[in-house]
């Protein structure tokens, strides 16, 4: 996952009604809507569907195959089929990994969104001396290679006893997702009409009340979008998780487990068990995407692309 820079100037421009470019409504329906063209274009969309979905067809069919003969058969549709692999995954304590990932990603999301929205509000709205310096610093952190932090953090965590613990993972996750959160939310806060806050201030609200009562509710969609992206990052992270908690079931996350499933034969990856575990993890993620696609796209493109 990466972060969205370019919020700096956007913020300023979007907040200022004068310099905002005239809204160019996209009154589509242009003359080239010939029927054959539409059919062709719709057919081309199938390419995109195929690209995105065919590995999942493979994944689901493979996870349902039973017995080594079926699993080593390159023909996807040759059985026998059954749910044996899923039973094996559940017997292998996979629920512990799901719980660990949910807790770590949940804590990361909550903390990150709370402190990130404070920072974003200050950067979007409040007068500030070193605003450009801070935004540059945030951008620099977003460009950091996480692996550069692995050796020093490993030594530091070893010294203070944070290896194989939840905080050992969610603390760096918060730091890594803060830039993304701040960029998204700065853009969202800047797009809220300033008059709303001023009205609240006139009515006697303190700056903090103006933020908490007026701006934050209006920015809820942005906050939600940022929360989803942070959660997805923390849920999917593998590098730090594999180094800071490689084996202990008390903190091992889903991605680490997906890689370390061992089969009956050592050094051979158990394809059935792994694909079943992948399906178990994938289905909630797909539902998340289907439910919140608009929010996710808004978050991904906030600050990056001009509105």
């Amino acid at each position, binding site marked *: 996952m*990466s972060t969205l*820079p370019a919020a700096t100037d956007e913020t*300023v421009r979007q*907040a200022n009604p004068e310099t905002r470019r005239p809204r*160019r409504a996209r*009154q*589509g329906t242009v003359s080239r809507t010939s029927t054959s063209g539409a059919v062709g274009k719709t057919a081309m*969309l199938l390419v*995109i569907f195929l690209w*995105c*979905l065919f590995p999942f067809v493979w994944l689901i069919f493979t996870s349902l195959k039973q017995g080594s003969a079926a699993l*080593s058969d390159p*023909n996807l549709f040759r059985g026998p089929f059954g749910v044996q692999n899923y039973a094996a995954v559940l017997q292998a304590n996979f629920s512990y990994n799901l719980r660990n990932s949910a807790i770590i990603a949940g804590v990361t999301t909550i903390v990150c969104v709370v402190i990130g929205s*404070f920072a974003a509000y*200050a*950067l979007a709205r409040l*007068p*500030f*001396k070193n*605003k450009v310096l801070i935004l540059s610093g945030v951008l*620099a*952190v977003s*460009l*950091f*290679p*996480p*692996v*550069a932090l*692995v*050796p*020093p953090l490993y030594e*530091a965590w070893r010294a203070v006893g944070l290896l194989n613990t939840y905080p050992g993972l969610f*603390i760096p996750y918060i730091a*890594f997702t*803060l830039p993304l959160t701040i960029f998204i939310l700065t853009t969202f806060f800047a797009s809220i009409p*300033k008059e709303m806050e001023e009205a609240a201030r006139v009515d*006697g609200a*303190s*700056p*903090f009340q103006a933020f908490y009562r007026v701006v934050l509710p209006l920015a809820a969609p942005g906050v939600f979008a940022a929360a989803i992206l942070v959660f997805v990052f923390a849920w*999917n992270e593998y*590098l730090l998780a594999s*180094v800071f908690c490689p084996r202990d079931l008390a903190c091992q996350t*889903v*991605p680490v487990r*997906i*890689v370390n499933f061992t089969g009956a034969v050592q050094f051979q*990856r158990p*394809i059935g068990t*792994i*694909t079943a575990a*992948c399906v178990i993890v994938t289905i909630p*993620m*797909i539902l998340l*995407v289907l439910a919140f*696609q608009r929010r996710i*796209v808004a978050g991904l*493109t906030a600050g*990056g692309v*001009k509105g």
Partner: protein
Amino acid sequence: MASSASTAPAPPAGAVPPGGERAKSREISVGALARLFVAPSIITMALVALFPILYAAYLSLFEYRGRQQQGFAGLDNYVDVLTGGRFWDAVITTLIFTVASVAFEFVIGMGFALLMNQAFVGRGVTRATILIPWVIPTVISAQMWFFMLNVNPGFINNLLGLGGFNWLGSEPWALVSIILADVWKTAPFVALLLLAGLQTIPEDMYEAARVDGATAWQRFTRITLPLLKPAIFVALLFRTVDSLRIFDLPAVMTGGSNGTTTLSVLVQRFIVAEPNPGVGATLSTLTFVVVLGIGVLFVGLIGRDLVIGDPED
């Protein structure tokens, strides 16, 4: 805090942050609030991002045998790493991976974005579909591609009629496989970013160009590309920086064998497989310099141009 509900109008929205022009008491208290709001984020990032970088630079000056510190080594670790072949091999592997995957992702992503922008039906469904590869943990897509490219059962080989071709066990096909897995996962992401940019281009510009007799290619190169520049820049920046730090795919698909040891895989090896905090810290410091350097260069070169040459229609 700051309860003076002044009726003085705030500075116009979007103005340059007021420096010292208004030295009112209200502004000072608001300034304090601003610092208070920013502090937790800054402290967290400094503690977990900045401090470790400095600590790594410090560790890299010591000699270790296994995990045992042997003493101050000066720049010996750097000399060893920079004169040895492994670091440079990893740099080259990482650069090849980055250039190839970003190029393919951009071209395919652009194709997808143009397609989706033209479609009248099913735009929502397509957009949801295209998010699926993005949302899947990279580790899962790595396992998926590992098994599909496997020799036995050999799903891909069977599909393409390649027999027992050993994708992951031979050079340069192991790297090609990893590039393929990366392109599969992130080309849709690039498409999303570009699509958002495409949707801000007014349709009447194309109309006008069409009236003037511009061909489809001319419309693409003269209207779409220039107006899409901000979106293209953002997509390329993300993808370049992300590709430079690639770890999950090679770690899971090949374990770094057969010419797939990227910088991140190499650094990780000196923590887990061959623990040596001194060399690990040296490599991580160098990786940090390389990746951040390319990132900053990217922002500086293209970003500045973008800001200055901002096409105000």
